[in-house]
């Protein structure tokens, strides 16, 4: 149970933040931070735990968003239900796509995920209608405004904040559970040495597919939230290489394979880039992304395992120095 405490603490502190804040922009930034942390944590389930770097997670996010939006726009399916249905569809599709590709290793696997992202990109951008369903094509897809709790549409940003916070807490519970379960040890074995794991009786393919399903399911669920929060889906952004790469970057900068690593990455990088986007919006369009790239280069060069370990060990040392007693409980 102890290992779940940090989730309660972090989620509890975050839940208190919007109280008294009347500044919509601050709430928006908070939502963006948590949403990106959520995506990075979802990426980490496959990329971090099993070591299969996906550069195509945007495809699952987009799929979740589009399916939720289409079901809502055309058949009036409540997004609460639509999100879960689309996440299941995205998860199923991810298994179909990954089944052959899990034969590939390292960079080859990463390239295949990019190829799939590109294929889905071309299909959505060049077809306004797919099977008679309105997907919007290259112009993007607007989501109908009706308002109300059952339609997950609110005038204020605060409800969205609590929705994504709950989703974030759920994905953190799931990853903490996975990391400490038999499945997590199997993932770690696959990540370290696939052949050795297989020789010891780990069903490698089955567990990789399980990690892929979990990762795609949560990514797509986050996609559904994205659709309802922004009320607009832009294929060039969602299905572009930059979006998927940025998600991976957050996890890499924070520390892959650690439960809290991607969260740390998102909590550092997203406020910086959101601030720059706001402050320099029109003047220097590319600067926030350029800084993303630069930070990634520096982190990979100097701290290849990410920021999480150095930061936590530094904090522990400080705590030890100040209080002169046992350091705080290890986080995971």
């Amino acid at each position, binding site marked *: 149970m102890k290992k779940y405490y940090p989730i309660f603490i972090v989620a509890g502190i975050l839940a208190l933040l919007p109280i008294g804040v009347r500044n919509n922009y601050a709430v928006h930034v908070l939502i963006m931070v948590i949403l990106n942390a959520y995506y990075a944590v979802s990426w980490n389930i496959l990329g971090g735990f099993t070591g299969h770097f996906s550069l195509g997670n945007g495809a699952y996010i987009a799929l979740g968003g589009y399916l939720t939006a289409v079901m809502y726009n055309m058949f009036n399916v409540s997004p609460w239900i639509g999100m879960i249905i689309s996440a299941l569809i995205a998860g199923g599709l991810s298994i179909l796509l990954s089944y*052959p590709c899990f034969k*590939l290793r390292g960079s080859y696997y990463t390239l295949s995920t990019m190829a799939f992202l590109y294929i889905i990109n071309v299909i959505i951008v060049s077809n306004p209608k797919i099977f008679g369903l309105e997907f919007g094509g290259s112009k993007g897809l607007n989501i109908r405004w009706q308002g109300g709790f059952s339609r997950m549409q609110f005038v204020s940003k605060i409800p969205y904040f609590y929705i994504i916070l709950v989703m974030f807490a759920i994905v953190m519970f799931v990853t903490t559970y996975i990391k400490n379960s038999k499945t997590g040890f199997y993932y770690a074995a696959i990540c370290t040495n696939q052949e050795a794991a297989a020789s010891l009786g780990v069903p490698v393919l089955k567990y990789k597919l399980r990690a892929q399903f979990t990762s795609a399911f949560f990514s797509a669920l986050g996609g559904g939230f994205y659709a309802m929060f922004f009320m607009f889906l832009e294929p060039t952004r969602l299905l572009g290489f930059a979006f998927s790469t940025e998600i991976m970057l957050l996890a890499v900068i924070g520390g892959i394979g650690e439960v809290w690593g991607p969260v740390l990455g998102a909590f550092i990088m997203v406020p910086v880039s959101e601030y720059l986007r706001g402050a320099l919006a029109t003047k220097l369009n590319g600067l926030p992304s350029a800084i993303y790239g630069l930070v990634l280069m520096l982190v990979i060069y100097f701290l290849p395992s990410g920021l999480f370990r150095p930061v936590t060990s530094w904090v522990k040392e400080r705590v030890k120095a100040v209080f002169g007693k046992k350091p705080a409980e290890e986080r995971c």
Partner: protein
Amino acid sequence: MGLGLLQAGCDGLLMGGVYASIAVGLSLSFGVMRIINWAQGEFLMVAMYVAFLFVNGTGWDPYLSLFVPAAFMGVLGYLLQKFVFNNMLDKEKSREPLSILLFTAGMGILLVNVAQMLFGSLPISSITKYASKGIHIGSLIISLPRLISFCIAVVLTIALNFFIQKTETGRAIRATSQNREVAQLMGIDHKRIYCLTFALGAALLGASAALLVPFYAVSPTMGGSFGFKSFIIVILGGKGSILGCLIGGIIIGLIEKIGGLYWSDAYAQILVFALFIVILLFKPNGLLSTDKDA
């Protein structure tokens, strides 16, 4: 119908040659150092801006000023390998280091956005005396700049292949690629070979950028599709194989143009990516490979 096919085939062939010379650097660094330069397309973009600015600034013939971006990229590649990648390779133990892939991914993002800040995001095309010239054979039209670019690209690629196959340095490069430890025992300084290999690939990339300038508009985001096509070409041709690149490049060029003729351009791209996945799954060592192990 037949003429359309012939025209598309010609266009595809000519473009394929340039694709090939762009991919050679990636193939060499993958084959020799086992590193994947994720920013290959962005390097091309940088080299194209260099070529473009030089040609526009001095008014020289774009083909004669080919040496400027080539030298620029070659030096840049040499320095990058010497001061960054070699250090990273020392730290990594695995055979195909992901850290360099991630590092270059970051570099790609940085370069695209810096270019966007410097030059804006709109594509710029240069107007040269070659721009609209074409050779008419019957009712077949062959664009002159594309033809010249194709010829130079193929000659340069074959020259590099000759260098790798026939000279002493080339032999050292091949030896390092086959087995680094044994090559070291034979007295080969593998770090120098790494720097040289990366520089050679980058220089050819720079030259290819100059070849694109007369008929291709340069924009900060143009690198993405070229970069990805280079990966496909490397996988098709087999990593480290220069002639494989030539074949892979031409196949990609042909699929694009002929697929675009019968289908749409967007779907021709899907065809290219689908082919890529099929090759990855069934012939991961390239079309020319005979052995099955990776």
